[in-house]
């Protein structure tokens, strides 16, 4: 019998562990920032549906977002409070996702030759790339409607409703937005349940089932609600 090296690493017991420095705290940060985003996209989707009420109604809503709280708040005051909150949430969400993804990639450096997925959903396995997809989309979306206001059909950009109709009148623009909504729907499907589990709110089988149902509802309502406007513009129901 040949001698076998059985000792592989010097085992050490950690002393002075801190709750704030654990992976679970990173997950809690990810869950909390994710819930901020769920609140945001729900409100955003509600605003988008104003497109069905017509040109004036939609633009008035867009304008009112800027004058909300006046004269107690300055012009765009509330908008900037929300924007700063969202930027902070984005930094927290992406930074903790990056840290956890890096850790996961070093936790199994030797891959399996054969690996089956027994019970995981597609949405759960696409969280990281789905998240990157949404981030890339977010950059384009802000260039399209907020920061630069790019009108892909080359028309005017000073009128929010017309900019939206011009954008979604292009079939390929609508497709880009619909693909992004699929990515968002998948991300929300797993993310909603995962956030509730990470916050420790799914301690029973019934609560777990409720959280999974909540994932479905949030995903379908938000991704579906957002998809209505581009689709109805493309079909000509919403027009200038």
């Amino acid at each position, binding site marked *: 019998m*040949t001698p*076998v*090296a*059985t*000792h*592989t*690493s010097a*085992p*050490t*017991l*950690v002393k002075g*562990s*801190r*709750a*704030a*420095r*654990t*992976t*679970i*705290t*990173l*997950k*809690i940060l990810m869950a909390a920032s994710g819930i901020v985003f769920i609140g945001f996209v729900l409100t955003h989707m509600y605003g988008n549906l104003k497109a069905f009420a017509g040109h004036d109604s939609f633009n008035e809503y867009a304008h009112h977002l800027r004058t909300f709280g006046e004269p107690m708040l300055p012009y765009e005051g509330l908008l900037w409070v929300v924007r700063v909150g969202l930027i902070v949430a984005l930094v927290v969400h992406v930074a903790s996702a990056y840290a*956890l993804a890096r*850790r*996961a990639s*070093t*936790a*199994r*450096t*030797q*891959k*399996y*030759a*054969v*690996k*089956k*997925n*027994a*019970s*995981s*959903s597609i949405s*759960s*396995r696409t*969280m990281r790339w789905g998240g990157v997809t949404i981030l890339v989309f977010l950059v384009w979306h802000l260039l399209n409607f907020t920061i630069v206001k790019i009108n892909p059909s080359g028309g005017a950009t000073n009128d929010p409703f017309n900019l939206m109709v011009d954008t979604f009148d292009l079939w390929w623009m609508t497709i880009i937005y619909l693909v992004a909504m699929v990515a968002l729907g998948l991300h929300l499907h*797993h993310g909603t*349940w*995962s956030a509730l*589990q*990470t*916050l*420790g*709110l*799914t*301690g*029973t*089988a019934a*609560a*777990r089932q409720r959280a999974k149902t909540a994932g479905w509802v949030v995903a379908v309502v938000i991704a579906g609600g957002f998809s209505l406007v581009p689709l109805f513009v493309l079909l000509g129901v919403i027009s200038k």
Partner: protein
Amino acid sequence: MKLTLNIWRQADAAATGEMRTYALDGVSEDMSFLEMLDVLNEQLNAKGEEPIAFDSDCREGICGTCGLMINGQAHGPEVTTTCQLHMRSFKDGDEITIEPWRADAFPVVKDLVVDRGAFDRIIQQGGFISANTGSAPEANSVPVPRDKAMRSFNMATCIGCGACVAACPNGSASLFMGAKITHLGELPQGQPERDSRVVNMVGQHDHEGFGGCTNIGECAAACPKEIPLDVISQLNKDLRTALKHGH
């Protein structure tokens, strides 16, 4: 039945391993999976080859020593341990790929044997209660509600086999920790060390190089003791509570 086996061979911890293929005939469907490997090892011994090293002890599904990745599933296609998996779960002519648990925190010692000392060290960090020894206390002086006793008992069925880590795409040991946290946390005797237990165990878990949980659920599906995902929620809740208490 006749089988083609692709098995991971690795001489020792420092060696580079590889998959090797073996043909095995005359396997009975009444054999356990490990008995099938015993038959293969007898043939390898007879030929003067090094037999395949794998862990096993009780062969009754209660000790948690055995554990193999079989065709990409921890403990194979049934909800049980490798030793309690029988060859009737396979068909004549099947090709079976057998690998050790893969996780950097579980380094391969030889062939299919991994060092799960990381679990022992997590347990050392909090998988216990501190109780005075000596005369047994009056049993009725510490009442335990039945539902809590049952939940504690069900989570205590975790045998620490490591299938949850092996199945997890992130290589996380959250289900294992969750089972221990819930088992002790449901009982009055587990309360004095409740906060320090979760913090120290998770601290050790992270130090060992296990990944973070993304609530995918592969662990609970692979668990031979059917520990549910609820325990990870409990683990997260206990950590959050400890955070609030300033640990």
